[in-house]
């Protein structure tokens, strides 16, 4: 018991300062891509030639767009672009309420809108979620688990992952939705009492990600559950736990405004990306 207390004291408070304080990210962390289509010169397709998931469209023209739902945030396009028309910022806020809104054209903060007043009243102070991995590689699953650890501590917001869909207010899906998992995913959704939320986490659930076009999977959650629209899309490969927190808190109306506070970690000198 003494050892436990001693270790507890040595480790100190572990919970991050976010959202009241800043979130800390390494210098090389790649968050929301910022696009400058006016820099994009005619005929150059250097970015689309390296992009592993065809997330970029309209390259070489003012119609340049980047779909963060397909983006793996590898940064190869930023490396390839001779004009710095695509750069990755450390803005960790990436979630959106519609699949279309994940497609970015400029350099504008991506802030997910809140649920309507009735749903906020129902879920705002207590949200229980059931997670289903439908072909996730265990990257998104690991980061969703991390949201519950003592650092990110999802529980302090009244949000919790629960064991049974019967106890849940929503289903969080990771993975491209393999054909083999589709029936179990639909059964889980149907077992969850209404009103309920459907949330897609990660590039695979948003677009199929690295395995898009595979003959044994869907290309993500869109249209998988007949007649049900996805309420929140959280892109990333995998999304950082703070990105997940930001999406959920904005959805519940617990976080508003465009106040972005990002601090470094002090390991790699700024500018040495």
């Amino acid at each position, binding site marked *: 018991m003494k050892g436990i207390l001693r270790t507890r004291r040595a480790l100190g408070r572990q919970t991050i300062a976010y959202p009241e304080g800043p979130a800390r990210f390494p210098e090389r962390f790649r968050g929301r891509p910022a696009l400058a289509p006016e820099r994009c010169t005619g005929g150059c397709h250097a970015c689309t030639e390296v992009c592993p998931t065809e997330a970029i469209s309209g390259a070489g023209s003012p119609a340049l767009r980047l779909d963060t739902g397909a983006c793996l*945030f*590898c940064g190869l396009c930023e490396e390839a672009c001779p004009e710095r028309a695509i750069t990755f910022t450390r803005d960790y806020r990436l979630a959106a309420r519609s699949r279309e809104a994940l497609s970015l054209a400029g350099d504008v903060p991506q802030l997910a809108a809140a649920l309507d007043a009735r749903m906020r009243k129902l879920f705002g102070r207590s949200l229980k979620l059931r997670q289903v991995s439908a072909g996730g*590689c265990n990257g998104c699953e690991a980061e969703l688990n991390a949201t519950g650890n003592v650092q990110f501590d999802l529980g302090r917001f009244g949000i919790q992952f629960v064991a049974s869909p019967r106890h849940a207010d929503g289903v969080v899906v990771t993975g491209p939705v393999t054909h083999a998992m589709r029936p179990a995913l639909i059964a889980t959704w149907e077992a969850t009492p209404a009103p309920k939320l459907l949330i897609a986490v990660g590039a695979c659930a948003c677009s199929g990600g690295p395995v898009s076009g*595979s003959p044994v999977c869907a290309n993500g959650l869109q249209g998988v559950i007949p007649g049900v629209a996805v309420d929140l899309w959280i892109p990333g490969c995998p999304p950082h736990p703070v990105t997940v927190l930001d999406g959920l808190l904005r959805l519940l109306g617990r976080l508003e405004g465009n106040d972005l506070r990002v601090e470094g970690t002090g390991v790699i000198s700024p500018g040495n990306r």
Partner: protein
Amino acid sequence: MPGRILLLANGQATDAAAAPRLPSADFQQVLADAVTAGARVSAFFGQAEADGAVRISAVLANDRQGSLGLLSTVARGSLPSLAAECPALERFERVLLEEHGLVPAGHPWPRPVRLGGEAAPLFAMAGGEVHEVAVGPVHAGIIEPGHFRFQCHGEHVFHLEIALGYQHRGVARLLAAGPDRRTAVLAESIAGDTAVGHALASARAQEGLAGVEAPPRGAVLRGVALELERIANHVGDLGALAGDVGFLPTASFCGALRADYLNALAELCGNRFGRGLVVPGGVRFDLPADAAGRLADRLAATFERVEAAAGLFFTSPSVRNRTDGTGVLTRQAAATLGMVGPSARASGLRVDVRSTHPFAPYTTDSVPVVTSPAGDVYARSWVRLEEARNSARLVDRWLRDLPPGPVRVAVPALGPDRLVVSLVEGWRGELCHTVTTGPGGRFATYDVVDASFHDWKGLELAMRGGQISDFPLCNKSFNLSYAGHDL
């Protein structure tokens, strides 16, 4: 057996035509003899040829000599099963059946491996006293899907069968269409918690096929990333094991400490799982000396905390009581199944690619192989801590003394009609990528074997004669990959 087995070294490419094609009976005999003599089956796969024939290739690892052997045969319709004689082959033969329709004649349980789910019949016992417990594919936590079927009498487990395949995304088939701009991210997605390991196995395979090597600084940074991945997962597992026995201090502490290792990977390359770091030819990001020193200092402080958190776990009598003698897997069972990684080492097997089939930087910086004879949950926990210790020492040494020079070299086009076997010791054990190129230098075949493919059967056996309430703890002590198995 010269002429019947092609000898290879890890990552060294050879002429694809050099692989001997044996008559079926010889192939079976040579294979069975080699496995009986102690060789491990690292890979065993089919490749469709003209007019319904299937070429079967086997990759054998001789851990004592540090060599790899390759042999092949051509089969049509069926082949005699070696599963009863060499259980390490049984799952591979089932894959041949479901992917190529090759019937393994005499196989005791030719159930589909990835395409069956619960629909294909599972083993069932008969009798009024026996009951079945079915779990999954959706589990209670944030976990990948799989179906577990227990044959029980009360708490007592007679038999467990694990039906996988729910995670089948067709990754291997997509990889075989390369090399292309998707190759690296596909390799990283085989198992997202082993992104560095599989990216490295894939990159080294391509380097072998192209005839280049990563420069020393790049090789050491790869070693740093591979060991950080190992520590992150081992520390996370210790926390999860503590959680499963209700010992919450270590569960909480290790959850936070694991993040320090993920964050260290993000310092290197911007991603907490090391995605985007390893590329054919080296690594994409260098680490300046001052930053490497700062990172080493932080990680040294973190590991002191890991020691403290783990110390609480290993010295607690209540933890000891729950883990000692729970889920025992004998050395003989682990060896017969061809198991790899910490699960095999905790049953006393000396298998570790870093030691037996090393590549730079492990050729110069050797890693002790950590083993325990006990084969129980305690042993699988203890082996993880010891391995994390060794990895932490290596990372510290490497970060404080990075070799000078570039981190990456250009990789020319892959050579035509070449073959390479690339082994990497991921945190779960051996990762094997066997790749051949066609006449144009594109991939002709791309076979992936994740450590979990060898080890799932071990979990089934470890549960025999145990209590069903110990299953979550046993499962966590193996912590195998579903995605890596299902591909």
